[in-house]
């Protein structure tokens, strides 16, 4: 993913491989996921269904599953996959060589 030009919100070491962590970005809460292939994804941190914490969800290379009721979001687009419910926003995200994480603008769906 291309380098994002934005303030650093955190560090790669904050996120264990395969998990997600939430960060505050200019008033928004964004969950950043570090996939097992090393790449990063970023989605709104709050599940639009009942406010579940997406950063606590189980992930694979494609989706994150909300821990409260199982709504499943595409990590690249934010689209809800299990039943076509309301999706979330996806954000550009990158880490530089030093591991500094930057979250960019929303990715248009």
């Amino acid at each position, binding site marked *: 993913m291309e380098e994002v030009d934005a303030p650093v919100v955190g560090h790669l070491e904050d996120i264990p491989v395969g*998990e997600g962590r*939430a960060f505050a970005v200019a008033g928004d809460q964004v969950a950043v996921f570090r996939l097992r292939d090393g790449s990063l994804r970023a989605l709104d941190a709050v599940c639009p269904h009942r406010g579940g914490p997406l950063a*606590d969800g189980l*992930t694979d290379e494609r989706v994150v599953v909300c821990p409260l009721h199982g709504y499943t979001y595409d990590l690249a687009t934010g689209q809800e996959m299990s039943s076509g419910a309301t999706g979330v926003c996806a954000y550009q995200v990158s880490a530089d060589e030093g591991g500094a994480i930057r979250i960019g603008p929303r990715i248009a769906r």
Partner: protein
Amino acid sequence: MTLLEEAPAARNGHEPSRSRLVVVGNGMAGVRAVEEILARDGAGQFAITVFGDEPYGNYNRILLSNVLAGSDDTSEIYLNPVDWYTDNDIDLRAGVRVVRIDRFAKVVLADDGSTLHYDRLVIATGSRSFFPPMEGMWADNTTLTAGVFGFRSLDDCSGMIDYAAGKARAVVIGGGLLGLEAARGLQNRGLEVEVVHAAPTLMNAQLDDDAGAILRRSVENLGITVHTEKRTEKVLSADGAVTGIEFSDGTQVPCDMLVVSAGIRPNVGLAVRAGLTVERAIVVDDHLRSVDDENIYVVGECAQHRGQVYGLVAPLWEQATVLAEHLTGTNPKAVYQGSRMATKLKVAGVDVAAMGLKHPEHPDDEFVQFSEPRNGIYKTIVVRDGKLVGATLVGDVSKVAFLMQAFDRGLPLPEERISLMFDLGTPSVEVGAAELADDAQVCNCNGVSKAAIVSCVQGGQKTVSGVSAATRAGKGCGSCKGLLGQVVEWAAGGAVEEDASASWYVPGVPYAKPELMRLIRELELHSVSSVFAALAPEAAEDAQSKMGLASLLQMMWAEEYVEEHDARFINDRVHANIQRDGTFSVVPQMKGGVTSSEQLRKIADVADKYEVPLIKLTGGQRIDLLGIRKEDLPAVWADLDMPSGFAYGKSFRTVKTCVGTDFCRFGVGDSTALGIAIEERFKGIAGPGKMKLAVTGCPRNCAEALCKDLGVVAVEGGRWEIYVGGAAGAHVRKGDLLATVTSAAEVMTLTGRFLQYYRESANWLERTYSWVPRMGIEHLRAVVVDDSEGIAERLDAEMQKAVDAYRDPWTDGREPATPGQFRPSLPLTVLPQVPVR
């Protein structure tokens, strides 16, 4: 002098495309066939003429018994009044009997002297009452003795009603459906009625001896006298009117009128004279055509298909549909393959339903029988290869809708066969899909209605898991999965596609549990990521599969299992149960539900220090601290300084106990000590589902051991009963008795072995209340108690390994396992959202 009344060429001259269809018989079968033909635009192809020897429109013969009983007026039973024929451009010849068919000239001749050409002919002549040979029955060759009636037509019915006025006693010969209906009808009209039946059992065509006996009691309770195994030899009369009957043994029954309902005979004379093959009835092929003449179709009670003659209305409808599809060419491949015989009726006020087999026929057939003669209730079920092949219900037909569906469509049946007969407290799983209202909520967790499921199926989703994914039905507690399957099946009309992944242990790795375990062992896969890499299609990870795999690997490898936190559900990552606001609940270990003032003081201090919004006693006799912030978890554990109570995982949860012998004046076994010992040994053991246990000190069962995954009950004489597979949650089930043992040590051994066997062979998330009935308690007893498979020693050793691998996860708190393990995920500025009580 036979003139063609209307030369076909003349009429067809105007409409060259219309050929003539002649229907002989204006009963339910003939007219239903015409309706089906019209529905397929048959009016464009055919000019239709219907002959009926009764001078009426088409009426519902089934309702004649209501007319006789006075609950329906004759005008209420018409299906198609004469206007209907006019409106549909059908030439109705009511009261005109066809007397001959000339197949070579393709002409029918009627008793009014008319003749009519046909291109296609439908014979629907039905059947007539059978009058067994009896001295004195007939006044002359065609006239019955006054006061003697058949019970078949509207005229029979009106005749009986007129004659019954002012009469006191009636006899009905024939204890089948119609005979009993006639008896009830006449009784309603104030007559004293006796029923005479030649066979030992009433309604012997549909019912077995036990059911017939119960029906007999119910009929007799209505005040109708029943004679069985009586052959009537004579009809007695005086002044040309009936006065009684005489049996072959010489005894007599006096009566003022006699109804003969001793069976029916198909009207086949016309067909015989036309040279068509007739056995019990007119023989037809799978298109309902005479086997001799491709222009002649036969439908209803006068048709014999594959050796069967049907006398019920449902098969007749199926026949009419096939006939119409074939005749109109809308579906030239339409074939009739016979009907499954199922019937539900009220016989003389008693509900009766019968379908398929009356008795098991093969050694492997399952037969479930329930008999309660005092209340007039009798039920049997015959199951073959997991499918319903027969059922009889007398007195209580509340389950008939589902049974008929299961019978017709071969639906999957509940494991507990008894629930086919009764509602056992399980929420609506047995309610038939068809009888559910559209807005009925199928999934009570996610609020999914029957209509939503049906529309999903109609939208093309043909697998249960597909519908479940798309609608979220069945994704809550899972207790509606049975009903969901039925509704999908029903909506798809039997076209449900088998879901290949249904047998897989987890959705993302295409193996059932035994094969998956074999491969994991063979390839020595110790971590979830290695399982995906080795066994998943394209080595792809699957989020939905991780939790199940982590649990399985932990069970299989114990100490050697390689933990990967990202494969764990959040509860297992932070060893607490996530709540709706993203906070967590903390339940400290409290073995057997026994605590101390010191523990209580610590818990109270923690609650104060962390401003715990809610302190709650759980169903498993523990103390739950709710609303703990994720980042506070390690400090809460440190301050509690108590081990985890494991109230968050698919794991061994709790052992609920009663007071036992120490204080209770009734206790016969030290349930508290045993419960504590069991929990001490098996605490935290992971499994495919939760394991909730109980030990209770006497049969009063205060610890509710009968509805636990494993429950132990002390009984007098120093013995312990072990029950397994109980439940009292979304599903309610009493556990099955696994064994009765004489020592606490044996309880420990069998508990460990049972739990290990469950861990190894149950599906992911399959609780013991499903698994135990699936495996069968006999099988479990053989394996766990009698070691029939020689694996007891291995099971014990595996369990010992799991016990040895136990470590208290709350020690994690002192040194986080991963960076940010306890970092809040939501909201970043903590705002309590659950109201504080």
